[in-house]
């Protein structure tokens, strides 16, 4: 009888460990599948026909249809530079510099990947339209109310999780395995300003 209980316990623990670790590696990624630079995470071989099972599972669950890393790179941030979750209760400044690519865009979403409704219908800034300083750097302000420079509205809701996506089409620096390279220091800094 005791042996039976022990075996059941072993099975339950194994189930939790197995499913839990699979879920973690598929949703959040691991150093095998993702590159993490500060708050930004990028699935290195997303969309690649020869990718690993974790990335395939991640892609199927996400419902997205991304380009492979040879033609585009996608970076997603759920937190600011200090690791706090992005939330519409706070204001943020996103400071970036020029990227060596044909086109890039920073867009703001809620936690489900939907755009956030706002009267000015402003959901993103791309390389052609963001107001930039003479050295190519720019600042995008995330806030509920209008802000100078580039303003991305975070909506009326005062407690909404936010997600930023930086998509880079046609990166010009390609490594030997064909993956577009974005130097770490080129990714925007996400700084939390004030919170209500």
């Amino acid at each position, binding site marked *: 009888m005791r042996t039976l209980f022990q075996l059941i316990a072993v099975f339950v623990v194994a189930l939790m460990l197995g499913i839990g670790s*699979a879920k973690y590696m598929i949703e959040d990624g691991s150093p095998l599948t993702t590159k993490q630079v500060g708050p930004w995470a990028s699935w290195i071989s997303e969309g690649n026909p020869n990718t690993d099972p974790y990335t395939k599972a991640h*892609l199927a669950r996400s*419902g997205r249809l991304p*380009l492979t890393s040879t033609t585009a790179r996608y970076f997603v941030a759920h937190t600011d530079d200090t690791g706090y979750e992005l939330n519409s209760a706070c204001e943020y400044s996103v400071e970036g510099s020029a990227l060596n690519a044909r086109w890039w865009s920073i867009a703001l979403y809620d936690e489900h990947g939907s755009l956030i409704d706002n009267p000015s219908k402003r959901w993103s800034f791309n390389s052609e339209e963001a107001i930039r300083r003479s050295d190519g750097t720019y600042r995008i302000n995330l806030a509920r109310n209008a802000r100078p420079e580039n303003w991305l509205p975070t909506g009326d809701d005062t407690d909404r999780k936010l997600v930023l996506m930086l998509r880079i089409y046609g990166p010009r620096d390609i490594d030997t395995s064909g993956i577009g390279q974005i130097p770490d220091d080129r990714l925007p800094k996400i700084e939390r300003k004030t919170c209500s």
Partner: protein
Amino acid sequence: MQLRVPLLYVLLCLVLAGLIHIAAVLALPSLAPKNAWARLVPLGPANAMIQIPVVAPGQEIMPMMAPDVRYAFCRFDLAKGPVRLKGAVQNDLWMIAFYTSEGDNFYTVSGVDMKSAQLDLVIAKADQAVAEAGVDAPEESDEVFVVKSPVEQGIAMIRAPLAGPSRAPGAEEALKATSCGPHAS
């Protein structure tokens, strides 16, 4: 008072956890009900160019679509022969990407790679013959470019990134003018 777990149980637990982990990871792609293919199929028939409605809050076909890109796709089905994509590429930023139903992006052409602004390409399976330029094709199909597909059914997605909000109508117009259909001849 026997708290010591035998080593055998710990090993059994780890081996079992490993197997469950592998099974879960491998099973997930086929269990995910709402992958990109499942989201795009209801939008229209196969072998036709379909414009994805402009992304608006709460009306996204797929999560995290770019609000400053206009999308059109053709769900190709090569069962009855090769399929042809035609249109005029509006600018260098355009990208035409080819996917399997599982989302494997097996080929991509971008506007800069194209020799002319005329998009004219044929999608065919490896064993399907396409009249290649210069063999027995008529003069005007000189520029026909063949994309070999590893699958019978897949997606050709055109992305038209916008240089600014004022460019949206032009891009939508240009996408509307692209076509997808059976490759005659």
